[in-house]
């Protein structure tokens, strides 16, 4: 277990020393502030919105940006070491393969989570100082959901990294997965609903296949009491499933998504000829 901590610490240290972490944190902060400021402008006045509106505005942005960062960085982990020749060297140390993988995974996920929290933290403080209506609990809950999504996507990126022959291949696969889960999945789902008149249960089951959608619906359940934004599916969740049950189902699915990719990655890594 010491090896896992050592490897995770090294990943975090390298991330802190690299420019990407700072750039990512700054980008998140600026976007959080910008969205909040400009959101009010659309309503006729200029100024900072309160937390609930800000979190709602940030939702779509985060569901695009956080998975992209986690997938691309996760995809570079093992493939990058393999390409640089450092993988054999690390494996030549007295540690198990799973320890190497988990150490890197935890370190990477912690680094991206740290940058995201930093970005949201700065934005949160600035918005809190500018607005009177403060819904900090919702803001923090939303941050927690984004962090959970980061953990999921880092795991998927890591699994892609394990099966890829090169860093470029891993990055290509990561971009493809991001494009599918962030854009194509929605379009396919809309098409299926239109073509097959899919009912609420089917739609809920389909949503569980995409961690981004799980987080989106979980966030909306917390942010929007009447779930109007979800249309007929919102009514289905409220009336047939119930808010609590829906939260439990979606949270369980999210936990499963947090465990599954890294478990698959560890299993694949055990049998690799690195």
């Amino acid at each position, binding site marked *: 277990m010491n090896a896992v901590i050592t490897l995770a610490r090294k990943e975090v240290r390298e991330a802190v020393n690299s420019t990407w972490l700072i750039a990512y944190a700054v980008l998140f902060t600026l976007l959080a502030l910008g969205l909040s400021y400009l959101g009010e402008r659309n309503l006729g006045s200029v100024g900072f919105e309160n937390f609930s509106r800000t979190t709602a505005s940030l939702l779509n942005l985060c569901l695009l940006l956080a998975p992209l960062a986690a997938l691309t960085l996760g995809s570079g982990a093992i493939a990058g070491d393999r390409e640089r020749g450092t993988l054999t060297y690390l494996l030549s*140390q007295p540690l198990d393969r799973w320890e190497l993988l988990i150490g890197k995974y935890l370190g990477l996920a912690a680094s991206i989570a740290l940058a995201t929290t930093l970005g949201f933290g700065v934005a949160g403080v600035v918005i809190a100082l500018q607005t009177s209506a403060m819904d900090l609990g919702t803001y923090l809950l939303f941050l927690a959901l984004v962090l959970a999504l980061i953990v999921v996507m880092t795991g998927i990126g890591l699994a892609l990294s394990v099966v890829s022959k090169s860093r470029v291949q891993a990055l290509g696969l990561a971009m493809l997965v991001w494009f599918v889960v962030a854009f194509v999945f929605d379009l396919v789902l809309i098409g299926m609903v239109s073509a097959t008149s899919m009912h609420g249960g089917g739609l809920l089951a389909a949503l569980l296949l995409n961690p981004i959608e799980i987080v989106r619906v979980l966030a909306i359940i917390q942010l929007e009491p009447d779930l109007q934004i979800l249309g007929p599916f919102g009514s289905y969740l409220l009336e047939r499933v119930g808010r609590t049950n829906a939260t439990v189902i979606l949270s369980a699915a999210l936990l499963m998504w947090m465990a599954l990719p890294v478990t698959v990655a560890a299993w694949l890594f055990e049998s690799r000829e690195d």
Partner: protein
Amino acid sequence: MEAPLASVRHAVSVRHLSKSYGSTRVLDDVSFDVRPGTCVALLGGNGAGKTTTLKCLLGVVPFQGDIEVEGVPVQSRGKDARRQIGYVPQIPAVGEQDTCSDALSFIAELRSVGADRVGWALRMADLTAQARMKVGELSGGMRQRLALAAALLSDPPVLLLDEPASSLDAHSRRELHEMIARLRGEGRTIILSTHVLDHLERLADQLLILDRGRLAFDGSVGELSSRVRGNRLVVNLNGNSPRDFMQALLVAGIGAERVTSAGLPWEEMLLAASTSDPATQEERS
């Protein structure tokens, strides 16, 4: 009769080692023993299986056969076996952005070694002045010394060096050879893969020559020499045709029994020398 595994005290015992990547057989039924405190040179051309042999000894790739390092079976107790081994890769693979001190501290932590060993390793590798320098700023020779220092952090009884001198200039190579000789003198077992012959005869107690995944020779430099019959003379023809040279020898009444082109890869010459059948030592021109 072949000695059973670990019946004799060996630093490293390899029995019937085979390894394939897909349908390509990289190692084929390789067996050898290494006595403690000796230096073994693993020789062979590109694709002979040298690096794969080292990877199998480290247990970082699956393989068929049995390997024991200091009596620890690599397949079933890979982690414990790796505690017995210090590994120096062909390209020193520590973080470019890390300082020498940080790079060593990281390996020390992975090997559960006290921080005091980092200072010792820096002194041993004569890198104390470079402790705060980034690894990426070091010369090739310094990097190699750093990699060796990292391998020695936990004071392992066995050292594996993969082509340690391949990217070094003559001066750094000499330094490395002196260091290897010193480590062997301390009683460490050293296995190094190499294609650089300089001073090899002085360094290696045992030669293992791999040829397309098969062990073609296992013995001392002296045993190898005794297999090469007659004396050898290398003549620089300055671009002249070897055929003309042979003709000139004949005209002068000198029988050219065997002429070996110095341009051939030395591994090939060694392989030719390692065979006991003189008939296979073809005349080359």
